[in-house]
């Protein structure tokens, strides 16, 4: 049962270009029907990983199993996998219909079947009206839809999307994110999506694979990756984060320790995780975990508001702590709270919701 669930398995796949390793031996499993995203900064190997699965590059080592069969040696045209290219790569001398029909004609499908399936695919991306247009007569968003229709019309086992939304403006990108999710649900195709945009990754994916310098840093649900980052890199790359350097001051019992931070001693709940006295740690707090309290409050770290940004739903502040560290806080707007609105330059105390902090081993 467990095994039947896996569509694609990468085992120890690695790749170097000109002696420079761009992908360290990597394992990855993709399940049937999921929307999985490779997230990472440029040069982290995510596009190389995609191209290895698409067949445009050959791995130096390892195997790529699709439904248990190794496809690593097959050329792209013999893999039941299709790609939506970052550049769209629409054939310029063919109209929309011919572009979408390209892959079916390569399969030597009967004419009637091609016409029906192309119409169907164009309906999915809502481009039925534009079948006779050429790519240069379409907007960026429409070209994007043609590229998607051209790939899904082949009914691939796995659809690879290489930063497909990066060329679109913000509003259109948002809209296409919903469209892609809808298309994926409607067609039930497994999507492997590559992006460097963490917001896009979190909002679209069932699972996120965070990559860094040619290897996988963390794999998990968007919530998992956001709330329980396994490293400082993941924490910083996925959303904004405040990092405090702390040292374990006292281990009271298996659930409670106290740490020294910013010259103060603070008690923390650790739910059974073991720490030794004197260990240095990173304490991570998301901006939305922080609370700003009046300067006469009995808890929190003293500081001074140096920036206030009204964002509609939230009020974002930058606070310079007395230790010199700057932290970001993001609080939900509450009109009824008289203490809420601190002006720039006003002294405050920075606190957080107990238990929302995340401890990581210190990385030097």
């Amino acid at each position, binding site marked *: 049962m467990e095994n039947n669930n896996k569509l694609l398995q990468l085992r120890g796949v690695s790749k170097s270009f000109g002696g420079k390793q761009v992908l360290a031996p990597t394992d990855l499993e993709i399940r049937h029907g999921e929307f999985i995203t490779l997230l990472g900064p440029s040069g982290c190997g995510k596009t190389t990983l995609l191209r290895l699965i698409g067949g445009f590059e050959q791995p130096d080592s390892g195997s790529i199993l699709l439904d248990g069969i190794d496809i690593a040696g097959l050329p792209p045209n013999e893999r039941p996998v299709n790609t939506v290219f970052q550049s769209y790569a629409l*054939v310029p001398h063919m109209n929309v219909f011919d572009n979408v029909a390209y892959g079916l004609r390569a399969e030597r499908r009967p004419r009637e079947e091609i016409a029906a399936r192309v119409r169907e695919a164009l309906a999915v991306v809502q481009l039925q009206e534009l079948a006779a247009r050429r790519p240069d007569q379409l907007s960026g968003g429409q070209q994007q839809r043609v590229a998607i229709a051209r790939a899904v019309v*082949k009914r691939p086992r796995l659809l690879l999307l290489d930063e497909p939304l990066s060329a679109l403006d913000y509003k259109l990108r948002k809209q296409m994110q919903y469209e892609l999710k809808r298309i994926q649900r409607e067609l039930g195709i497994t999507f492997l999506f590559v992006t460097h945009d963490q917001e896009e990754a979190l909002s679209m994916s069932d699972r996120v694979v965070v990559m860094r310098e040619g290897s996988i840093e963390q794999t998990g649900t968007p919530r998992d990756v956001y709330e329980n980052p396994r490293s400082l890199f993941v924490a910083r790359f996925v959303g904004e984060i405040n990092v405090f350097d702390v040292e374990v001051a006292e281990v009271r019992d298996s659930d409670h320790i106290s740490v020294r931070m910013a010259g103060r001693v603070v008690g923390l709940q650790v739910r059974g995780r073991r720490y030794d006295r004197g260990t240095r740690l990173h304490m991570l707090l998301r901006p939305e975990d922080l609370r700003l309290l009046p300067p006469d409050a009995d808890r929190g770290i003293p500081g001074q508001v140096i920036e206030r940004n009204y964002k509609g739903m939230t009020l974002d502040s930058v606070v310079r702590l007395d230790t010199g560290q700057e932290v970001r806080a993001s609080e939900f707007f509450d009109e009824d709270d008289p203490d809420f609105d601190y002006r720039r330059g006003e002294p405050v105390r920075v606190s957080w919701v107990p238990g929302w902090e995340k401890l990581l081993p210190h990385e030097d």
Partner: protein
Amino acid sequence: MKTRTPFKTAVLTVTWGWMIIFVLLPNLLVFSSSFLQRDELEFVRLPVTLENYTRLLDPLYGGVMLHSLWMAAVTTVVCLLLGYPFAFAVSRFPARLKPLLIFLVIVPFWTNSLVRTYAMKLLLSTNGIVNDLLITIGLIDEPLRMLYTEGAVIAGLVYILLPFMILPLYAVFEQLRRDLLEASYDLGAGRWETFVRVVLPLTLPGVIAGCLLVMLPAMGMFFTADVLGGAKNLLVGNIIKNQFLDARDWPFGAAASLMLTIVMALLLLAYYRSVKLIRRRGNDVALA
């Protein structure tokens, strides 16, 4: 656009002056002398006559014209067969090697083509290098007769004109987007299908431009036929040259020259027609 600067005026004057003195006037002279009669002392004299054109109708000249077209066509096909894969290969080389390879294609231009044609003659002659080599490695016992054949003329024409085929082809191959090829493979097309459906349509403008740049000069390159072809392998260019320099019949030479111009104009017309046809089929690639 309406503003007139001294610079602009100067440039326009020089350009128009050049075109009028070196293009329009000579062509007018050729055009008018083609309707005159031959004169021993003054080269041409009145009255106006159509006799030169009726002489062109002689099957002898029609034959030379057809033979010229045939030789030019074979030259063009050979250049295309050599130039197309070459241009493709160069476009796939690492970026730092490309300028060197294109430089090597252009280097022969630095030597006069007549000199290069004589060099070709040395290679092909009965006791030339090619025959010596073939005999030495034992492929043949007696020297082959290569000089003064149709093949020698075509070889000479290909040698001189090949760069004119390679350069426009290289330009279109450089513009050929690699992601289109990847998309084609990704969608299940093999190499041949990708070539026919993507590469060929996108490089066709370069093919047509290269063919014109080879075919049109090939019909007029009289010295190649003179040096390598001997007396029998005449091109239209030889007839024209002979009339002006040897037979001293300027009016007839002018008429033959005009006929060649008309044939070339028709070829160009066919080219623009075909380009329009490709455009209508949806090819938006910039024409080389």
